[in-house]
């Protein structure tokens, strides 16, 4: 298993958000986390990265990472594309990408990955010397995904990559995510409001309600599940 969560509780201060999340995903797979606003999807991702106080068990490649610091978790190969994209707005596009590879020591491979990322997103190459804050929303989302890729991660956590993007841009982005998964074997855990798109991309998924996993299964089964269809696919 690439990632395993067992009975994960988490919250902010006195507010409990997660009440025992159980979830697992395999190497090279794509998983979707579905759920309404406030269900705890983002908090689940933050718990994996050690950004909130958690109880329970979080294993990455078999190793318990719950007590590790965020920066050490990143160095293990988990790249988080956070809610709001986490762009370094006052740095240039290329500086953002170089920061993505900050923890890596293999310079030739970093240079190759930079080429590869520019290959996926030629727009970023055109804007490499531009301040990241001046990029459009779509370009910033591409930059956030690219910055995560520069870590050469085993697992990417994507928090609403489609948020605020035009449908065409979303389609392009998801296409590239699929390519990245197929070419580089990067596992992906995807949080999405856009359940139809997410289940299209993912191999498997689970539905979170008020901090608990209420349903999980293959993407195909979830798409056909009546409750999921009514609540999240809207038909």
């Amino acid at each position, binding site marked *: 298993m690439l990632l395993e969560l067992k009975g994960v509780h988490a919250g902010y201060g006195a507010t409990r958000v997660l009440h025992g999340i159980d979830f697992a995903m395999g190497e090279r797979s794509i998983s979707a986390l579905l759920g309404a606003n406030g269900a705890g999807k983002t908090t689940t991702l933050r718990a994996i*990265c050690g*950004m909130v106080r958690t109880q329970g068990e979080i294993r990455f490649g078999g190793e318990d990472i719950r007590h590790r*610091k*965020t*920066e*050490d978790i*990143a*160095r293990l190969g988990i*790249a*988080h594309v*956070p809610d709001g994209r*986490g*762009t*370094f*707005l*006052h*740095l240039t596009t290329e*500086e953002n990408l*170089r*920061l*993505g590879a*900050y*923890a890596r020591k293999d310079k030739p491979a970093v240079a190759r990955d930079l080429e590869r990322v520019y290959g996926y997103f030629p727009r970023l190459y055109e804007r490499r010397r531009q301040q990241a804050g001046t990029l459009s929303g779509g370009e910033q989302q591409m930059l956030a995904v690219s*910055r995560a890729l520069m*870590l050469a991660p085993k697992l990417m956590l994507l928090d609403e990559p489609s948020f605020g993007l035009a449908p065409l841009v979303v389609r392009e982005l998801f296409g590239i995510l699929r390519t990245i998964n197929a070419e580089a074997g990067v596992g992906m855990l995807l949080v999405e409001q856009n359940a139809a798109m997410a289940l299209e991309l993912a191999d498997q998924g689970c539905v979170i309600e008020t901090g608990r996993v209420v349903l999980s299964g293959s993407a195909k089964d979830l798409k056909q599940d009546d409750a999921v269809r009514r609540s999240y696919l809207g038909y």
Partner: protein
Amino acid sequence: MDALLHQVLAGLATGGIYASLALALVMIYQATHLVNFAQGELAMFTTYIAWSLINAGMPYWAAFFLTVAIAFVLGVVIERVVIRPVERAPVLAVVVVFIALLLIFNSVTGWIYTYTIKQFPSPFPEQPILGRYLSSHEAGAIGVTLVVLALLYAFFRFTPLGLAMRAAAQNPESSRLVGIRVGWMLALGWGLAAAIGSVAGMMVAPIVYLDPNMMGGVLLYAFAAALVGGIDNPWGAVAGGFLVGVLENVLGAFVIGNELKLSVALVIIVGVLLVKPSGFFGRVQVTRV
């Protein structure tokens, strides 16, 4: 005219020193949004270390570089030991810690070295250069300032560590997500600021002489410089430093007299805060509510 030129050049020399210390203030401010009131006393204390080393027979430049290294380590240690525990404390608590550091360094220095004013040597030769306009120490101080600025620029602009420090100051959360150890970046920032401060101290000491209160005035000018430039802008702080140095000298010599020189800094501080609180090169922070 001659006299004016002389005052402007001398102003640039002290201005460079203010610029260095202002830069140290800005570095800490960018990372923590706090003004380190102890920056001046830290510089003063490390200048005393240089004095001890030189008195023990060490050649000037060896003592200079060793002092810069000691100041760097001291800055890092202070951040790790004293500042880190109050990282999440309310702003006032941290300010109190800064003021405590100021008093501690001031008193400890007085206790070790006494309050008697001491001479501090200049590494530059006696005779003036540029005719009679600029003493060679003043010219040397300008040169040293420019070298420090160039090194800092190169460090922050061209090295991965410098980039990581800028990133950590701007966006700590995203920095952690790419594996940057943000806590250490802060400590490094303190180390660098203390090192820059020690250079400023060693450059100003031959002019104002060495005593535990020597940096009080300098820190005030540095505050004024940082504010003129916009407290979040390193280039502004440098420009502000030179500007304040020249203004102080020219106004002191021709307009208000030497006794009232320090009030120039105060007038600048109040004036900037009233008219343009973000400084002349600073970024205006707009928050949507």
